[in-house]
Structures are given as structure tokens and as C-alpha cells.
């Protein structure tokens, strides 16, 4: 049995006081200083711990980052003056897609490397747009593919990137064709090019080193290539943007490169392979409404890898009614399947992959793997406040980050994602993430379940 892939994590405490969800207000006025709340009520000792760390500060701190919200202090206050409120800063965190909850959860994972676990049932909405309208399936009994998790078995999360042969051909018992080159990543997640406003201080060093540490790949711009060690270790995918892409560009000699789509893209791919036939070329293409057809065309013409880029919320570009990655990927995948070429090309999806569950769901919808950027920045404590984009100072001084600290935060996040992927795959009875691709039979879509259950009872759904 091969050695198990594991991502080792070590705690990496936040550099800045994270934004907590809940706060206690109205503490001072009328308070009888009985200390009921401080001494007796909080079983987590939060008030005491806060007081210990804040000796030099005046007064109490209103927003207790770790507050679990049990309300015991509020309900035991002798004078009924303690009130708990939602931290307004928390409400402003992130946006409608990168919700405050998701940001906090990402911080937790980057700090601890652990899967977020909680008690009680699920407290969120019944379903939602995009990935929130999918449930993954589970198998009630042992199926041939299913062995469970928790250490006894081996679940593989590795994927092969590159062109694959549709079939093998033999002559005189010998293989007659040369299999094209492949790169294997142990995780179906690579790091995408980090947007300009985040590429400050040691951020790129942290991202590339973390990629090297967990054995995955990172898409780099020309400017990043020489500076970063990871590129030397074969982890980098240089994005050759100056047209026409050529081997002479910085990074152009790398074994795996990425080029933007364009009218002559296949000629560029051919040129890049000419002097280095074992090179893999990925074509980066914005996910627009017609992308399925374009992907099929490129796949037929011999593309190795196609990287579909969605916006940061996972929506397609250039449409007044944009579809979510979920639907575009399904469309693209089925188009390729129908044309009999799905297995030959590798599909990478990026944009809107915000949580571990999205990795599994994007793969079920038809991607081979995903690329991420925003979650990496969240791991570095980014608050998505957008100040940096406007040239304002960053509240977490991102430019001052210690690269080693950054590496540990990113590695931790990936460790937590990897574990969650194993949980989901274990429940599905799928032992290899390669087999999850396009496996919509291992998931349930909101609209199908609604139609089959409520639709037959209540007719047509209101739009």
C-alpha cells in the first residue's frame, strides 16, 4: 500500500485580533460590579482571559472574539444590564459570497489546520444559489467502492493534469503510441495567479513555498517567476501572457506553462511544444456563455489542459444573466462527454471556490481540479475590506507578513480542506477523487429533488 498523503499542520495564531461575531455591551453603566458574569457565568473563562491580556488597556473589551454565544453571562447578570449584540464589524466582513461566517471559518482552519466541527444541527438555509443547491450523496451500506475513512483505508485525492489518450494501441505486443506527459498533484487544488493588489511583501513567497510544501502547483506571472524558489522545484506554472507566448519569455522553459486563449492559441501551443515535446500547456479561458463550445473545439484540436476562469463569486463572465460555475461546468462536461473527448483533456475551474465543499462539488459537476486565490489570502488574515485595491493601508499589514508564518497558515488551510474532502468522499463511498469527476450520480440537485417531490404535489414552481 502506498504511503498516505497527509498535510502536516502546526498551529499558527492570528497576528491580529480577529473580528469576532458577538459582543457584550452596556457593561459599565449601572453595573454593580458583583462580577457574576465574570466569575461564575462564562464556563469558557472568556472575560477573565480577556481581562488578563488587557491589563494595560482601559475598561473592558466589548467584542469578545471567542464568545460562543451561550448567553449564560447575559442571563445571569444580577442587574439584567448585559446585552449581547452582533459585532457591526463582523457584519461588514467579506461580502454576500464570502460571508462573514465563511471568512471566520477560513481563519479558523488557517490557524488550526482542523476541520470546523460544531454541535447542534445545521442552522443555515434550506438551500441556496450555486453550490448551495447541491447535496452530496452517501451510501447506507458498504458498497464495493466504499471502505469508510478514519485511518484504515486509503482515499486518494491525487489527479493527473495533461492530455490523455482516448485509447492505447498495440503492435506486436508493444505499445504503439507515446503517452503524453502528465503532472500529478496530490490534491485537486492548485493555487491560481494572485491578483495584483495582493501581491505585496512576501505574499508570493508564502504562496509558492506553501504550494511546494504540499506538493501542488501555483500559477505565476512573469514578475514572480525568478524570485520564487518553488518555480525551480517544478511547482510553478508560468502564465505566459505576452503574445505570442514563447519559450524565450521568463518561465518559458518550464515543463508546464499556461497561455491565454486567443485565435492562434493552438499554434502557440504547438510552438511551445516544439522544442520541448514533454511540456504541458494549459489554455486559460474566461468562462463566457459560449465556453462549452470553445472548450470542445480546443479539446478536439488537441489542447492538454483548459483552465476555465469564473469571477470571484463563481459566476460566468459577459452575460446579463450569468450562470454559476455549477451549471457552466455541467454544461461543458456533458458537451465533451457527448463528443467523446471528455477523457482526453483536463479541466481546471477557478473563481468562486471558497470552501472545501466547493472543491468536491466543482469536481462532481465536471472539473478535474480547481484553482484558488481568495481563500489563500483569507488564510493570511485578509478581511476582504478592499482597502488595498484603493491604495489605502491594509488593516492587517499584509505587506509585512513573515513568509514562514504565511506558509504555515496556507498549509493549515489546505490540510483542513484535504480532511474535509476525505470526509465527503468517505461518505460518498468514493475512494479516488479522479472517479468523482462528473459523477452527478453521487450528488443530488435541489431542482431535481424539488421536482420529484414537491413538483408532483404542487405543480409548477414559481420562478
Amino acid at each position, binding site marked *: 500500500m502506498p504511503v498516505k498523503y497527509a498535510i502536516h499542520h502546526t498551529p499558527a495564531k492570528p497576528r491580529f485580533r480577529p473580528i469576532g461575531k458577538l459582543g457584550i455591551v452596556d457593561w459599565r453603566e449601572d453595573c454593580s460590579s458583583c462580577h457574576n458574569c465574570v466569575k461564575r457565568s462564562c464556563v469558557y473563562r472568556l472575560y477573565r482571559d480577556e481581562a488578563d491580556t488587557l491589563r494595560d488597556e482601559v475598561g473592558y473589551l466589548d467584542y469578545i472574539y471567542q464568545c460562543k454565544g451561550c448567553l449564560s453571562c447575559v442571563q445571569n447578570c444580577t442587574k439584567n444590564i448585559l446585552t449581547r449584540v452582533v459585532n457591526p464589524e463582523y457584519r461588514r466582513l467579506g461580502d454576500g459570497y464570502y460571508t462573514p461566517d465563511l471568512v471566520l471559518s477560513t481563519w479558523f482552519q488557517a490557524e488550526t489546520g482542523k476541520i470546523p466541527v460544531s454541535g447542534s444541527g445545521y442552522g443555515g438555509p*434550506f438551500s441556496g444559489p450555486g453550490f448551495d443547491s447541491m*447535496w452530496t450523496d452517501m451510501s*447506507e451500506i458498504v458498497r464495493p467502492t466504499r471502505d469508510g475513512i478514519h485511518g484504515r483505508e486509503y482515499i486518494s485525492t491525487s489527479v493527473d493534469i495533461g492530455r490523455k489518450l482516448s485509447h492505447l494501441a498495440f503492435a506486436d505486443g508493444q505499445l504503439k503510441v507515446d503517452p503524453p506527459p502528465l503532472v500529478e498533484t496530490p490534491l485537486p487544488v492548485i493555487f491560481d495567479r494572485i491578483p495584483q493588489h495582493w501581491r505585496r511583501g512576501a505574499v508570493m513567497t508564502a504562496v509558492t513555498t506553501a504550494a511546494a510544501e504540499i506538493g501542488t502547483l501555483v500559477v505565476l506571472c512573469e514578475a514572480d517567476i525568478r524570485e520564487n524558489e518553488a518555480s525551480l522545484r517544478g511547482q510553478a506554472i508560468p502564465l505566459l501572457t505576452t503574445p505570442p507566448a514563447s519559450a524565450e519569455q521568463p518561465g518559458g522553459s518550464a515543463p508546464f506553462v499556461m497561455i491565454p486563449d486567443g485565435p492562434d492559441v493552438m499554434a502557440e501551443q504547438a510552438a511551445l511544444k516544439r522544442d520541448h515535446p514533454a511540456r504541458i500547456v494549459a489554455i486559460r479561458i474566461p468562462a463566457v456563455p459560449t465556453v462549452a463550445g470553445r472548450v470542445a473545439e480546443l479539446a478536439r484540436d488537441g489542447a492538454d489542459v483548459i483552465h476555465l476562469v469564473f469571477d470571484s463569486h463563481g459566476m460566468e463572465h459577459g452575460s446579463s444573466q450569468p450562470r454559476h460555475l455549477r451549471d457552466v461546468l455541467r454544461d461543458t462536461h456533458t458537451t465533451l462527454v457527448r463528443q467523446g473527448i471528455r477523457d482526453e483533456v483536463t479541466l481546471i475551474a477557478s473563481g468562486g471556490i471558497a470552501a472545501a465543499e466547493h472543491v468536491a462539488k466543482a469536481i462532481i459537476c465536471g472539473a478535474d481540479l480547481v484553482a484558488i486565490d481568495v481563500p489563500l489570502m483569507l488564510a493570511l488574515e485578509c478581511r476582504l475590506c478592499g482597502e488595498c485595491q484603493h491604495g489605502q493601508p491594509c488593516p492587517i499589514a499584509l505587506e509585512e507578513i513573515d513568509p514562514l508564518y504565511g506558509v504555515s497558515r496556507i498549509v493549515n488551510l489546505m490540510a483542513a480542506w484535504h480532511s474535509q474532502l476525505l470526509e465527503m468522499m468517505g461518505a460518498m463511498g468514493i475512494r479516488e477523487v479522479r472517479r468523482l469527476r462528473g459523477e452527478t450520480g453521487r450528488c443530488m440537485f435541489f431542482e431535481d429533488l424539488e421536482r420529484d417531490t414537491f413538483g408532483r404535489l404542487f405543480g409548477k414552481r414559481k420562478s
Partner: protein
Amino acid sequence: MSREVRPAPPRYRNEIGKYSIYRGPLCANCGRCVEACRHGVHVRPEGYLHVIRPYDYRCIGPECKHAGCFCIDACPQGALKLSINPVSETMGDRRWTPDLLMSTWAMAETGKPPGKHLESEVGDSGGGFDRLRFRFPDSPPPGLRREDISTRLPLNRRGDSRPGITIDVPWYGGGMSFGSTNIRALLGKARVAKAFHGFTSTGEGGYPERFVPYKDHVITQVATGLFGVREETIRRAPIVEFKYAQGAKPGLGGHLLGDKNTPSVAAMRETVVGVPLFSPFPFHSVYSVEDHKKHLDWIAHVNPRALLSAKVSTPIDVDMVAVGIYYAGGHIVHLDGSYGGTGAAPNVAKKNIAMPIEYAIGRVHRFLVDEGIRDQVTVIASGGVRTPADVAKAIALGADGCVIGTAELVALGCIRCTACESGRGCARGIATTDDELLEKIDVEWCTQRLVNLYTAWRQMLVDTLYRLGLDSVAALRGRTDLLTHLDYENEA
């Protein structure tokens, strides 16, 4: 065990309600507000000169104005202020809204349906039960009387030689292990089960000796960990439940974090203190219905008087699974939907795996009907059943009854802060085995809160049946024609 409703006041000094009443320094202690308020918010105890601090959680808000009993208007000094309690906004979630929490607390305190100022039927999840409504006829049929409506539910429909157990209300308490939950809360659950001729379940943490006096109302659960499961406890149980999966973490198996594995828990489970415990998923000896049948046969052999139940989660083929349970000899198919409660589960599992119970019920019901075996098996639904309205909707969709878990804990003061998994467990002393924290509740209080809750629920269920013109809960099963869904066009 008595079913008598008695007030079971909240155990914290400041219970949380929807409204806050503030009595300011202008108060002259005239007592007008005491006279005005019909809800016991303002109180001047016998022999007191002063009106004591308002019990503002009982306040029903500005609605009072129309009934002519508004304390704010009654106060000659203008000393009273009424506002929405800002704390209520920080509690609960989309499924268990602040109103649902507060209405459950009110029922547990009083044994009565909560007032109209609280939304006590639906949450804010935006789908499933929260979007389903009943279509009530204009008036119930003449002659139908509330007191004649039956809420009883027979559990053995196979007509075999095993006992024909019938429970008084169409729900029973869910499995919570000794280790996940305070023994006092568990005993409260066992005692209310006895009072209502119903059941509670051990969960998979063994069979505490203190359950023995209630043994006729305790289901023994058998899960892969087999923690503390013995033939002796199987022989004791009127129902034995095989747990294949649980809705809150379908496909993952049970997990008790090390911190919660205290000496008493470890002793019960016959394990080592402080070690995290897994019940791996699934049963590695079950590959087919035949294997499942072997398990049930074993139980049936060890306890010839037990009814057999299988608790499963809700995969896409849940209907096949249900049929499999029937053919293997099960009396009860217990479907646990994906939004169920738990002591601890990865968030990724709670949110994403398996289907909500609202879908599963209809699928299973239909399939069993098509197979011609619907009347030989009892279908019990759980996983997100929060209110008597949810129970009624689940039954209308095709279940026979429900299992409830979270609602019982909410009645005991759970606020759904979701910290139950943490080191010492629940800060409110419910889901804990920490010696200090478990002092926070006592058995009598727990029992009374649950008796009150069950009584209020029954009354609300009877009211629904009455308004629907049905004389029994059995007559509601599968009556999807009585339902409507707010998101569908023909909801009128």
C-alpha cells in the same frame, strides 16, 4: 409518572424574551402596571411595597394595546419603556429562529401553546417545512370534538407475534448517548417517555443503570462502536434500534471527542478515559439486505419481544433502503434527514451530505405504497423536526410519526450556540458530562419542562387535526392534498 402540567420557570435570572420592559426611576410604585398586565410581567409580591423587576420575557409586546391592558399606557408616571430585546437577534439561526427558541421555552415553562406574538410554527430556512402550509377547510365538520381526536400511534404493524406497542403521541425522544448529554437531561427524557407511554433512546453510549426504572420506555441503540451494548441490555429493551447513519453527519459515523470521555463515560463504554471514540461508518459486516437481515435476526433471537428499528440517513436511494429494512424484518424505518442535530459533527457534513427529510419522507412513503407494504411498517421521520407543525407536515407527507431531539434540549434551555462539542461540552449544562456543569440542571425540572412541552405540542397537534377535520393523527398520514407550498403556483 405524572403528566400534570406545573409551571417550570426558567433557571436563569434573566430569561430572554422578544421584548424588553424597562422601568425607570420615575416609577412611584403605584401598582397600576401590575393590575393592567395580564401576562404576569409586572409583579408585586404579597407584603412587598415595591413592584419587583419586570418579568419582561413574558411580555407579548405592543399587541396589548388593543386589548386595553397595555402597561405603558397605564403608567401614570410614564416610567415604562417597551422595546424589542436586542439580544434575541443574536440567538438562533435560520432553522431555529429566535422566535422558535423562545416559543419552545414558553411551552416548556407553561405547558401551553405560546402566544401569537411568537412565530412558533416555522423557521426561516426558506425551504421544506418552512414553506409548507396546511389548507384548512372553512370550518371543521360538525360533531368533531377536540377531546375525541386520537394522537395515538401503533408501532408494530407487521401483525407478528411481537407486542403491539402503541404510543400516546406520534413522536418520541431521539437517541442521545450518555457521554454526549448530561445524565439528568437523559433521565428527564426517559421520564417524559414514561409519562406519555412513549420512548427515548440510549444513543450509542451504553445503558446507564439509572435508566432501569424506565426500561419499558427506553430503546437500546446498536451502532458499529457497540459501546456498552450487551445482550442483557438488548433483552431489556422493548425496541432495539440499529443505527446505520445519522442525519447530522451522514456517512461519517459517530465521534465523541476525547474531552467528553470522562471516567464515568469511559466506564459505561468500556474504554479508556480521554480517548476520542469513533463508531466507524458503516457496519463493515453489511453489504446487502441479507447481511442487514442477519443483524436483525440476531436481535430478534436475543430478545423475542423486541420491535426492531433501523435508523438510516437519506441518500438518493433511501426508498430502496426502506424497503430493504422491511424485508429484513424491521418494524420501524427511522429516516434521519440531513439537517438533524448532533453533539458534534464536521460542519461540512451538516450542511452538504444527504437530502433533507422533507424530500425523503415522500419518496419512501410512495415507494412503500407502490410495493404494497406501506401498512406493514412504521415510518418515523427525524432531522429538523422542530415543532408540532413540523410533526403534522411530516405525517401529511407520509410519515407515521417523528423522533425529536433538539426540541427537547431547547426545552431544557439549549440556545443552539453550537458549542456542545467543546471540551467540557455545553455551557448551559445540557450536552455535557462535566461534573461541575451538570449541576446546572436537575432531573425534576427537566422532566417537568418536557412534560409541559409534550402537553403543549399535543394540544397544538390536536388543534391542527381539529381544524383539518380529522379525528386521528393516523388519518393525516400521506394527506398531501391538505398541504400547500408557498413556492409553487397552485398553492391557492
